[in-house]
């Protein structure tokens, strides 16, 4: 029985409904997230500058520093001998000493010798006096200068006839694992995770906000949590590449031994990447202009560049400062990375440092969500 369930359509209304015949696709719960992550990685791949700064720069840095510190054996010493008096004789004595292979000596005028010494070209200036004695010019604040004085003195005394009473022998230790480059590479991994977390998240979010792209996104049914999740996940993908590249580079080029398990390193890297992602997010949560966020990012990173032991051990800083240094996220990450990579420490033994990272990341993330501006 035909019943009128629809109102009779006027031709005009029919005209208005040429619905596309093609089957509509239906997106699942995670389609938006996957697409967001995908375009983020695509965009990154298409930005040569970013690829260089994220991947190339840390490698270059480790290569440069690694070579600089590998080619200078720590125990060579450069000395200047002041011309005149017994300069020639002194040179012969030094050349004849048992330590001659590590002593680089040159004869110079007094003026030039002292100048070279002041500029760090020489560790020590040796001046033979008229009466046959010697005067050393050295800098007690420079360890290599102090060492040099002891070494040259021993060489000259021995050449002049002093006999060693005690028999000693020495063994050089420059095994892979205890050199500067081995100290450096885990530090560079940590620094690189900090850099790309702060710039990759902080800068790119503010850039999207400034371009009103974020506003455009939140005007769609996109889930805001998916967006943030995609941003964080892209960091994790990059982290694997960053850490992997530096480790493999260290192993192949500098024969750096990796004592810990790769799994631990990856877990540590993830926690570090997410922690700095959180800090980056917090830094970027309100800024409207990329200029202002750039300043903020530098301000946040600066203390860690200096204090967190990337290039040299932070134990050099005063004892009083140590507690503050140790709660910085980069310090915790660097220490944990070194312990794992160089000493093979287990993750469990690093729980204190991991806690520091998780707290930084977690708190930053919560605050960032609270204060975040989408427009």
């Amino acid at each position, binding site marked *: 029985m035909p019943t009128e369930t629809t109102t009779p359509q006027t031709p005009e209304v029919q005209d208005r409904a040429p619905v596309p015949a093609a089957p509509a*696709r239906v997106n699942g719960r995670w389609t938006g997230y996957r697409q967001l992550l995908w375009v983020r990685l695509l965009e990154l791949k*298409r930005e040569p500058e970013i690829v260089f700064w994220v991947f190339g720069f840390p490698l270059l840095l480790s290569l440069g520093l690694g070579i600089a510190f590998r080619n200078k054996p720590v125990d060579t010493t450069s000395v200047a001998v002041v011309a005149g008096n017994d300069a020639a004789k002194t040179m012969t004595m030094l050349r004849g000493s048992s330590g001659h292979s590590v002593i680089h000596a040159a004869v110079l005028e007094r003026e030039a010798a002292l100048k070279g010494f002041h500029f760090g070209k020489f560790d020590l200036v040796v001046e033979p006096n008229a009466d046959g004695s010697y005067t050393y010019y050295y800098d007690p604040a420079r360890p290599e200068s102090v060492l040099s004085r002891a070494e040259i003195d021993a060489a000259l005394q021995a050449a002049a006839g002093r006999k060693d009473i005690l028999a000693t022998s020495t063994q050089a230790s420059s095994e892979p694992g205890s050199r500067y480059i081995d100290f450096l590479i885990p530090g560079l991994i940590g620094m690189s995770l900090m850099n790309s977390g702060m710039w990759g998240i902080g800068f790119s979010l503010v850039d999207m906000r400034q371009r009103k792209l974020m506003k455009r996104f939140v005007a769609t049914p996109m889930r805001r949590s998916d967006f943030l999740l995609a941003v964080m996940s892209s960091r994790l993908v990059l982290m694997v590449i960053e850490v992997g590249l530096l480790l493999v580079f260290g192993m192949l080029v500098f024969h750096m031994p990796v004592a810990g398990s790769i799994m631990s390193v990856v877990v540590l890297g993830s926690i570090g990447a997410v922690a700095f992602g959180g800090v980056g997010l917090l830094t970027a949560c309100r800024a409207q202009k990329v200029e202002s966020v750039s300043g903020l990012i530098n301000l946040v990173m600066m203390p860690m560049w200096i204090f967190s032991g990337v290039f040299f051990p932070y134990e050099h800083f005063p004892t009083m400062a140590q507690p503050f240094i140790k709660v910085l996220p980069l310090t915790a990450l660097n220490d944990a990375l070194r312990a794992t990579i160089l000493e093979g420490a287990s993750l469990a033994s690093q729980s204190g440092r991991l806690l520091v990272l998780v707290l930084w990341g977690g708190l930053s993330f919560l605050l960032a969500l609270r204060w975040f501006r989408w427009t």
Partner: protein
Amino acid sequence: MGSPIECTNLRKTYDGKIEAVRGLSLRIEAGECFGLLGPNGAGKTTTIEILEGVLAATSGEVRIFGHSWDENPRQLREWIGISLQETRLSEKLSVRETIELFASFYREPRPTAHVLEELQLTEKADSWVGKLSGGQKQRLAVATALVGNPRILFLDEPTTGLDPQSRRQLWDIVRAFQKKGGTVLLTTHYMDEAERLCDRLAIVDHGVIIAEGTPPDLIDRLGGHHVVEFETSGSQNGYGLDVWQKLPGVESVRHEDSAVCLNVREPHLTIPALLAAVNQQGQQLEHLSTRQASLEDVFVNLTGRHLRED
């Protein structure tokens, strides 16, 4: 289901002092193309962004198909497609990638190929966004609005800065959407665009609607049908505008640089009287023209200013 867009007594005060919108009410019916017309700073963007749910109003109420934005925003967002006044889409993504990204946010988006075809972007599908012309970028912005298969399209100055041909292309796109039953709200400060494209208009100035209606209706009500524009030489001292106002059939009078503009209903009555009056005053007619009244005249009559200063 309520009307697609409805708002009452909308107010927006920025930073506690800049009153961008001051009590604005609108009701837009299904299938309508509604235009917000107004000069720079009138509050068009502020209004449209509040309606889109991306900006919170200071007070007032917004309803999209009878629902407020706090009820179920995700559902409302499935129903609307927007293009903001200024969005810089990622330059290093291709047109297709950009559309697919936006498509992925909607439950049942339209096929990307259809949208590309409709917006004449098929040829450019694999070009990077950064390499597109201004008109192509604008079409892409509309494409990202249409890919979610919306029922309402919000366009904030979709044709600003485009050449006449690109503008007409966009008008066709809007009309096609309307033909499928969609509702459109757009802002513009192009008179001809408002006149040709919009079924109804609201003229906005200083955050309030100063006139609302269909374009012919507005012109009819506020402008008079015709405009008689003339210039005279000789002493005008002592003759104010009220001389012309008294002529038969004159609705309103204004100065336009050195010329005088009369809005008239029946030029065949006014013009002979005008010539007689000029003669009587001993002046010379330098120039006389008549034209159809436009929305521009409506705006000038209402505010004493031009919509665009160029």
